[in-house]
């Protein structure tokens, strides 16, 4: 197979461009969800908050100010075709350089510290980014990028359930996660759920689920219904926007499932705050 050669600088430029979009422009589908929630909210304070979220999106876009001061950990899921050859520089080096450059260019907050315990000094340029590489067939290069805030990430959970746990136990653990998170996770939320796989892969599925189109539903009818049930039961909990009460706590639920060991039933719940900043680019 003839390799497809892609220039490293070109990839870097595309990543920086995408980070600029993520930093200032809200996903139009997210804004549609917010407007729909605004229509159906009955609480005055919830409507006040949803209006503030919509105003915030307009100011961020018009004035190039990040919509949230926590411009997050830069997370990358890269699907690289086995016949792609990158010319000039290694892929991970390109990503780290792009993150550092975009952080300076767009005045992103520097939120990454050097070491979890020994040295919590700031690295000063938001590197290292978190990078997940997957080798796939073909000559494509798809890069999914997220700015993931710390508040919702801190309240995300992994449960290693018993295989005898049924649908109800899965739902109640997801509800518990969202309830315990309360205002800390900045609802209305988008939920990424990973079900099955193993200890390290369930959270990866949950995170990957957050990159789906906001309107996407699980292709398996059973799981699509499960997504719907989780959404409607959480929304009837009354937590509401920013935990101040209301019927809009979750905007979307995305579940990805995978085969698992006969002894296991891992469940990972990755919370995404309303500052939803996920984007995929195809190079």
């Amino acid at each position, binding site marked *: 197979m003839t390799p497809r050669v892609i220039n490293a600088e070109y990839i870097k430029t595309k990543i920086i461009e995408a980070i600029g979009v993520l930093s200032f422009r809200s996903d139009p589908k997210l804004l549609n969800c917010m407007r729909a929630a605004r229509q159906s909210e009955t609480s005055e304070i919830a409507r006040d908050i949803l209006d503030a979220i919509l105003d915030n999106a307009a100011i961020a876009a018009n004035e190039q100010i990040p919509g949230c001061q926590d*411009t997050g950990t830069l997370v990358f899921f890269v699907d690289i075709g086995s016949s792609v050859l990158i010319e000039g520089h290694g892929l991970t080096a390109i990503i780290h350089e792009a993150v550092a450059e975009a952080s300076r260019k767009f005045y992103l*907050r520097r939120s990454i510290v050097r070491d979890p315990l020994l040295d919590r000094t700031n690295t000063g340029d938001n590197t290292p980014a978190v990078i997940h590489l997957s080798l796939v067939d073909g000559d494509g290069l798809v890069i999914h990028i997220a700015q993931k805030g710390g508040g919702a990430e801190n309240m995300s959970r992994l449960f290693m359930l018993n295989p005898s746990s049924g649908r109800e136990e899965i739902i109640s653990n997801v509800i518990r996660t969202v309830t315990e998170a309360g205002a800390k996770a900045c609802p209305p939320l988008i939920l990424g759920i990973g079900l099955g796989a193993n200890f390290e892969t369930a959270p990866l599925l949950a995170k990957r689920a957050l990159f789906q189109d906001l309107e996407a539903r699980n292709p398996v009818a059973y799981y699509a219904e499960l997504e719907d049930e989780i959404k409607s039961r959480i929304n009837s909990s009354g937590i509401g926007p920013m935990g101040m009460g209301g019927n809009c706590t979750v905007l979307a639920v995305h579940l990805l499932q995978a085969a698992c060991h006969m002894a296991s039933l891992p469940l990972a719940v990755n919370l995404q705050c309303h500052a939803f900043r996920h984007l995929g680019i195809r190079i």
Partner: protein
Amino acid sequence: MNTVKLELPINKEQIRNLKVGDKVLLSGVLITARDQAHRRMVEMLERGEELPIVPRETCIFYCGPSPTPPAKVCGAIGPTTSSRMDGATLILLEHGLLAMIGKGERGSELVERIRAKGAVYFTCLGGVAALLSKYVVSCETYAWEDLGAEAMYKLVVKDFPVYVSIV
């Protein structure tokens, strides 16, 4: 929803008139401090040193702003999760702290202490940091510049919207 305007610093008498759920428009000085700044303040108090703030006269804002772009007053301004600062706040309350702004619930021990001390905890909206930046009149580094986003910043605000959460 009751809306009140207040000038900072606020005193115990003004706090006594507040009710949970009130919307308050704050004007005056806010000093930002998050995890690292709180850690340093606690260490200084343990050593008997004087803090860079006077707790009684300071409204602490749990916030790490994004950098100020050229020709702008400030970057994005918004709250971080307050409960991470609960331990340090118990100590700061003993030194007179009366007002703080952040996001999310506080631990039950702290809730009691806030009430017993006649202090107030305000929350403001998370994830609307471009909007909140519009209420900022000026932003400058106040202390501990080496901490980057976790340094203390002095924000002068006008009608900055918060909600009374614990009083």
